[in-house]
């Protein structure tokens, strides 16, 4: 095994270690003997021996054949040949990646601080890990970075965008022009050799920059030392599309380097949210190499952690999941096949609302109540039943999944505690990113219980978790109501409650209000304590909203929908779900407008004050509509990003997305289902379809965009913000029509109007209030 390390001075070293991975074969003794003979006959350099390992579901130790492969390069090939030759046998541990297996065997992990004893050949004699994946504070090695990207807007070059190559190193930025390919390659080669980066960060490096540069390097015979290890080329994986949960997903190509890392910012899973700090944290916890961690989902991460737990316990990791669902009647299916519990929100505006959330509810249920594939429906604990569905849960043996997630939950709680106690700053941000990475791991660990490809998934365990979750939420609701609180909304693991008394309304600055606030918080403390005690799952106060608006469905304004709301916490922080700002297909211009409006509304201390801010919101809407109509909006802010759900030619209706995709196809771009397309609406109702929308990459900025269509999108975003204040879409359109236009705008007295002058404007809000009593 080749192991790259960075010493405390920042120098990279290539070390070698002797490592013999093994897989296991299960079957009756005669079959295993036949396997041993087969291996000998093939002449492979393997060592086969009888041993015992634990089978997950039964918990019993079973006899298996251990096959150790001395040549690492042959491990996968031997495993594939054997499984093809003897397909009916049971196989274990055969498709765990070799770097992971190495980490398991050495009890090490990526980015761990280690002490090595080496011989003169740089071969590892001893490896001692002086670090723990559960350490809250740890030092990362000093990494030399290089950024390689195309100059200008971050537009997908696979769709035709071209610009000079930009190389950034510490303190210097070089622009390399492609007019002279030889000079470009030689300069890049020199930069790579001179700076010898540990990490190369690119934009579209996986799918475009590295493949093109390597192609040029071959053509002009100028080697590019992307790898530190000169004996091998970068590892290329082609792109592909696949179906997942009824949706098509496009996985772009990848270029993995040896001896240094390559991270493509446009092919890195969730790094917008948790950044490199989070990715490094996941690599440390999951024992997956960094380059793979950034290119795979957190589900793969949690699966790797479960495999590591199994490895530690001597539990066999099945190659294929074979355990089907136990027989159940149709009636049992109705009882058990449910998700989380939701109480639809009470529509409209509410003041002084507390949101309380169970802390990592589903993972906590798994950890505290021992829900795991092998503990569900055990025969030994018939008295320990899951509410509502009646499955038994074992109390005698600790589940593999709970054992995996428990320390992760603990670590996240510790980080969250530190974040709460620390002032803003870089250290706090590091903790925030790490705990965010934990959040994603924990979110997926529940889904993986029911996921078809999860090694340790089982549908009954998935059902048990949701059944416990429903029970917890129900109990929380009952406890809140028994304490005189009104439950406005409950959604799987969160409850929104309001006090009947309102200590935090008119004069917030007065001493009475402050003591009222303390009393409210202590009331909530008691509530949280009681819920935690009864359910055994910790629950915490997410925050107290000055006001929160539960928004109606877009189809029916009288109907409330879960997870569509806007609220402002006591500290002024805005929280919103299910609105335009949160959607990935909303143009940046509309996002900016809606955010500006929300920031204005966030200054309101009460619902009464909120209503007085409507004119300011309209003013903002008018200004944005003006900018659109006068052509002042930079076209980059109008781009709409949508995902292709099928092959572009398979679209029977010419939607704007299909039109843009077909234009790209026509210009020679290859597109796959699941890929994202960016376009600008040029004239939605143009007679010629091709005039309706243009791919972003083809849009030069000189041709007009469809201002009225963008105004329509803007007004929809305004409506979302104002509808809880009783303002409907037609009213907004009228005001914006009145309010736009330079001359009128200057004299407009919109802002001076009092709330009362808006007439029936707030009827909706008042109605909503009455309904909540």
């Amino acid at each position, binding site marked *: 095994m080749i192991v790259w390390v960075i010493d405390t001075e920042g120098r990279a070293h290539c070390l070698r270690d002797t490592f013999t991975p093994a897989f296991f074969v299960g079957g009756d003794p005669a079959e295993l003997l036949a396997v041993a003979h087969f291996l000998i006959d093939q002449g492979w350099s393997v060592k086969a021996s009888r041993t015992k390992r634990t089978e997950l579901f039964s918990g019993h130790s079973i006899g298996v054949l251990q096959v150790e492969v001395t040549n690492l390069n042959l491990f996968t090939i031997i495993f594939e040949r054997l499984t093809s030759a003897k397909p009916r046998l049971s196989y274990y541990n055969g498709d765990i990646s070799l770097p992971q297996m190495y980490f398991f065997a050495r009890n090490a992990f990526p980015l761990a601080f280690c002490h090595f004893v080496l011989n003169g050949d740089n071969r590892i004699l001893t490896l001692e890990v002086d670090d723990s994946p559960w350490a809250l504070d740890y030092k990362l090695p000093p990494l030399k970075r290089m950024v390689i990207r195309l100059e200008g807007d971050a537009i997908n070059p696979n769709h035709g965008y071209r610009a000079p190559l930009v190389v950034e190193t510490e303190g210097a930025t070089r622009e390399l022009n492609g007019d002279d390919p030889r000079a470009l390659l030689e300069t890049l080669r020199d930069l790579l050799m001179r700076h010898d980066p540990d990490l190369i960060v690119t934009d579209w490096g996986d799918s475009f920059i590295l493949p093109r540069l390597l192609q040029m390097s071959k053509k002009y015979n100028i080697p590019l030392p992307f790898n530190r290890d000169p004996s091998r080329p970068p590892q290329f994986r082609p792109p592909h599309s696949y179906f997942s949960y009824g949706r098509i997903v496009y996985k772009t190509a990848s270029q993995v380097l040896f001896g240094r890392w390559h991270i493509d910012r446009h092919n890195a899973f969730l790094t917008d949210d948790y950044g490199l700090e989070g990715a490094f944290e996941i690599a440390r916890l999951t024992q997956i190499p960094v380059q793979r961690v950034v290119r795979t989902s957190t589900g793969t991460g949690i699966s790797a952690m479960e495999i590591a737990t199994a490895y530690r316990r001597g539990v066999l990791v099945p190659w294929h999941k*074979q355990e089907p*669902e136990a027989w159940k009647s*149709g009636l049992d299916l109705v009882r058990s096949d449910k998700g989380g519990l939701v109480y639809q929100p009470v529509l409209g505006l509410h003041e002084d609302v507390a949101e309380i959330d169970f802390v990592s509810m589903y993972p906590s249920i798994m950890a505290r109540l021992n829900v795991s594939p092998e503990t569900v429906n055990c025969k030994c604990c018939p008295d320990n039943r899951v509410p509502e569905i009646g499955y038994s849960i074992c109390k005698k043996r600790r589940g593999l999944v709970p054992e995996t997630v428990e320390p992760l939950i603990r670590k996240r709680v510790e980080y969250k505690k530190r974040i709460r106690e620390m002032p803003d700053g870089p250290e706090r941000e590091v903790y925030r990113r790490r705990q965010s990475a934990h959040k994603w791991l924990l979110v997926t660990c529940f889904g993986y219980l029911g996921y078809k490809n999860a090694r340790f998934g089982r549908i009954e365990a998935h059902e048990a978790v949701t059944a416990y979750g429903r029970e917890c939420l129900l109990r929380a609701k009952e406890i809140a109501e028994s304490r005189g609180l009104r439950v406005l909304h409950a959604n799987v693991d969160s409850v929104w409650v309001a006090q009947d008394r309102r200590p935090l309304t008119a004069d917030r600055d007065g001493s009475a209000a402050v003591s009222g606030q303390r009393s409210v918080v202590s009331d909530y403390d008691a509530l949280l304590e009681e819920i935690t005690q009864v359910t055994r799952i910790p629950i915490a106060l997410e925050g107290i909203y000055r006001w929160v608006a539960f928004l109606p469905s877009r189809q029916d304004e009288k109907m409330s929908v879960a997870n569509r709301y806007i609220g402002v916490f006591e500290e002024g922080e805005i929280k919103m779900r299910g609105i335009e700002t949160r959607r990935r297909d909303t143009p940046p211009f509309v996002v900016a407008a809606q955010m500006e409006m929300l920031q204005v509304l966030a200054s309101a201390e009460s619902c009464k004050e909120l209503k007085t801010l409507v004119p300011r919101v309209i003013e903002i809407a008018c200004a944005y509509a003006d900018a659109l109509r006068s052509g002042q909006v930079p076209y980059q802010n109008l781009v709409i990003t949508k995902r292709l759900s099928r092959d572009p030619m398979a679209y029977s209706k010419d939607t704007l997305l299909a039109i843009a995709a077909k234009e790209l196809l026509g210009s020679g771009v290859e597109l796959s289902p699941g890929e994202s397309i960016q376009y600008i609406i040029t004239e939605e109702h143009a007679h010629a379809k091709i005039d309706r929308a243009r791919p972003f990459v083809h849009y030069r900025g000189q041709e007009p965009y469809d201002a009225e269509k963008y105004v329509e999108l803007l007004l929809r975003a305004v409506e979302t913000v104002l509808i809880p204040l009783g303002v409907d879409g037609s009213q907004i359109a009228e005001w914006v029509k009145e309010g736009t236009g330079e001359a009128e705008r200057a004299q407009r007295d919109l802002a001076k109007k009092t709330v009362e002058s808006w007439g029936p404007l707030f009827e909706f809000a008042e109605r909503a209030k009455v309904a909540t009593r």
Partner: protein
Amino acid sequence: MQSHTRCLRVLDDSAYNPIQIALLFGNADLTRLALFGIVRVAAEQRAVWVLDGGNSFDAYFVARLARGWGMAPEVVLSRIQLSRAFTCYQMSELITRRLGAAIHPSASATIACLDLLETFYDDDVALADAIRLVRTVAARLGDLAKRGNHILITAREPRAGLRERMVLLDLLKASAQQVERVDAPAPTSTARTVATQRQLVFARGDLVNGTNVTFVYASDFERANRAGEIQACFAARGSGSV
């Protein structure tokens, strides 16, 4: 269009029924079609074993159907035994080992394999492996049929891009005595939305004698049910044919 009714006849538990394995394939909503047969069997106080490869068994639809026939939904649902498979290895295990152990060895059982090939169309599974497993599964179903069990299989065709997996459907076809293709009719302009969203629900018309069968859609079903048409259709269910 009467063909699928011949396939559903496999569920008739009569000694003279020559069909032991029937296969319905095509792009219609075959699960819904099969559920009519399944509910009818359950309504006749017989147990049905359902193996679901597409997580498509709709208990609420079964309940509505039972209620429409004047049966208590709880009773009908409790007579249906179900297991879902999410990988082809689970489906294979279910058919080759678990099913035989669950059904009574001496009595003939009614078995419905819904979306049987769905998990075998997973492109993560090597085609050679999928072929091997389907052969094993087909052989095992053949054994079960020889022991007097009646088996209805539904399977859709592989989607574009996985056409090489058509061989799996061919293997199943070879193992069944009755094979019929059922496609959803091209939707009319008014029915288009309904058709694309909810797909084919069931056959109506002269269901009793198996002629002049036409398709209706979910929304039509609700309307027809209100008008009493459905009750008329199923009034003759005692005759043993749907």
